[in-house]
């Protein structure tokens, strides 16, 4: 049985771009607000269904849909933060976890109601196309998704690096109290950050819908993968999350060589648990999991 390793790796790298897009939303929210956004899974899933709705029902072009979805989800995220999540910011972190879990449940079951549990997929002109480069067949679909993802991350990086709000976000992520002291409206920052996080999740979902089939249960395994990547890579650096995404995508791709394809997700789940236990304080002191230093 010959497995085309170069093709596998290329495909994995393309997927890594998507994984990075999907993880950054989670990393951003965690970094700024120190809460784990379980509704991230719901947002990704809704992003997929939104793409389905716009592309299949309304006939949008597959890469125009994100342009609508991103601002929509951004707005949704701001609403969620302002009216719901904000109230538990001062409670122990487990409260926000449970709250966001409840929101995820709601999102998931609204999807079941509206779309039913059937698996959906989006097929477009690009779905089956491949082109040859250096003798490797590359899926056009994946390449375009990769490009959109990277573009989005690039824009995000520019935003965080060059705009006032971007810097305010980074400051709040580092030290909320100090940020308040220098006049940063941290409430506003958190709203924007949460909005961005949800928007990125929605974007990732809408892109993933072009590659994978999905149903309302869609977000869960991707949530775990995102978390795995965030822990591996660390916060505050695109490099960290990108590296984590790359690492996971390649590990998953190569794992096919040794284990059954059905167990591929097992790799990321097991990795998540192992990384949580073994990584002391994350890669850049991200997660304060242990009380000892």
């Amino acid at each position, binding site marked *: 049985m010959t497995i085309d390793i170069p093709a596998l790796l290329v495909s994995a790298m393309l997927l890594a771009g998507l994984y990075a897009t999907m993880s950054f939303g989670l990393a951003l929210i965690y970094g700024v607000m120190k*809460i*784990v956004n379980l509704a991230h899974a719901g947002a990704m899933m809704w992003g997929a269904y939104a793409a389905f709705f716009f592309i299949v029902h309304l006939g949008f072009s597959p890469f125009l849909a994100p342009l609508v979805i991103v601002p929509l989800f951004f707005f949704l995220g701001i609403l969620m933060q302002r009216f*719901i999540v904000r*109230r*538990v910011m001062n*409670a*122990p*972190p*487990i*409260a*926000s*976890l*449970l*709250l966001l*879990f*409840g*929101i*995820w*449940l*709601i999102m*998931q*079951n*609204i999807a*079941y*109601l509206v779309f*039913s*549990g059937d698996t959906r997929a989006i097929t477009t002109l690009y779905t089956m196309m491949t082109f040859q480069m250096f003798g490797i067949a590359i899926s056009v679909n994946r390449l375009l998704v990769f490009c959109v993802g990277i573009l989005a991350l690039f824009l995000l990086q520019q935003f965080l690096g060059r705009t006032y709000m971007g810097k305010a976000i980074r400051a709040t992520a580092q030290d909320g109290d100090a940020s308040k002291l220098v006049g940063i409206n941290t409430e506003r920052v958190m709203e924007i950050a949460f909005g961005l996080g949800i928007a990125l999740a929605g974007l990732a979902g809408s892109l993933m819908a072009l590659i994978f089939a999905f149903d309302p249960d869609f977000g*869960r*395994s991707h*949530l*775990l993968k995102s*978390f*795995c990547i965030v822990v591996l890579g660390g916060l505050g650096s695109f490099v960290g999350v990108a590296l984590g995404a790359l690492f996971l995508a390649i590990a998953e791709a190569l794992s096919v060589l040794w284990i*059954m394809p*059905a*167990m591929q*997700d*097992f790799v990321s*789940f*097991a990795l*998540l*648990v192992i990384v*949580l*236990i073994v990584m002391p304080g994350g890669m850049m002191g991200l*997660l*304060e*999991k*242990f*009380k000892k230093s």
Partner: protein
Amino acid sequence: MQVQEALRSWKPWVGLLFVLFLLWVPSSGIAGGYLQTLCFLTFLYVTLSTGWNILGGYAGQTSFGHATFYGLGAYTTAILVLRGVPPLMTMPLAGLIAALYALLWGYPCLRLRGQYFAIATIGVGEATRLLMLNLDDLIKNNTWLNGFLQDGVLTGGATGLMLPTPENISSYAVGFYYGAMGLMFLALLASWWVKNSKFGLGLFAINMDIDAAETIGVNTVYYKNLALMLSAFMVGICGSVYAQYMFYIDPQTVFGFPMSIAMVLMPTIGGIGTLAGPILGAVVYIVVQDRILTANLDIGTLKLSLSSMHLLLYGGLLVLIILFEPKGIVGLQQRLARWWKRRTGGVMARKTT
């Protein structure tokens, strides 16, 4: 003297009446045995809920992966029964295996704080489900391990396992009804005992401030793991009961995330960390689920999507509870009691002046 005083209050009498009612249900044949089934499920879920509460409510370690223990209990029983072991004998073993598995991944994971532990449990839950789904295929080529296979089947993969059904199924069901009821009371007794013991005090201390508890002499690692193992044991036994009652198990149901979700929702909605909370939560869960599911029987093809309404409801309830009354139904009841006391207390004061 305390007993005398207690007997004077109406509560124990109502409770006794209720228990007598429960004992009578199977012979009554209400709704053609449907009430009996519903009560049985309630007993099972109260036990599950109470088990989860020991770790999640008393010790404050929220686990989203308790389905692993349920599934392990169910599969232990199923696998052993298919190889000729009497079902009832498999029950303690089911609980034990669940408890040991808990120790295996619990020991490293419990070092994680609150939300990270919760995330880890989701990971473990999903990983275990996948493992059990594919276990047969994984071991069939391994010469040492494939001796466990019976006709090429250990866990049965996605198709699950089917147990032999007994001949007299209705008396079997009645037997299980009383058995589950007994189990539930045992579980409640255990929970009550823990709550009032030194062990429970330690767990509450860990829940409220783990660092302070550690410096004041509580061996937090030991206690957390003990709570996890006890919780797993109880849930594992419930899994075993499930397998013996349904005669069919599959990984999607017993190891699935929805099962874990149910175990989180019930005590949280009912009143986390209390004795009555898990009971109330389980009753609400079963009743709501039943009412919504049966309400859709005649809507034909729409039944599937509408049956998710109960989860939508729970999601909403959970959000409301976290936002407004973290102590759940029990907390609401306490608030009402206080409000009522103030009202009647005020009236009394006015009357005496």
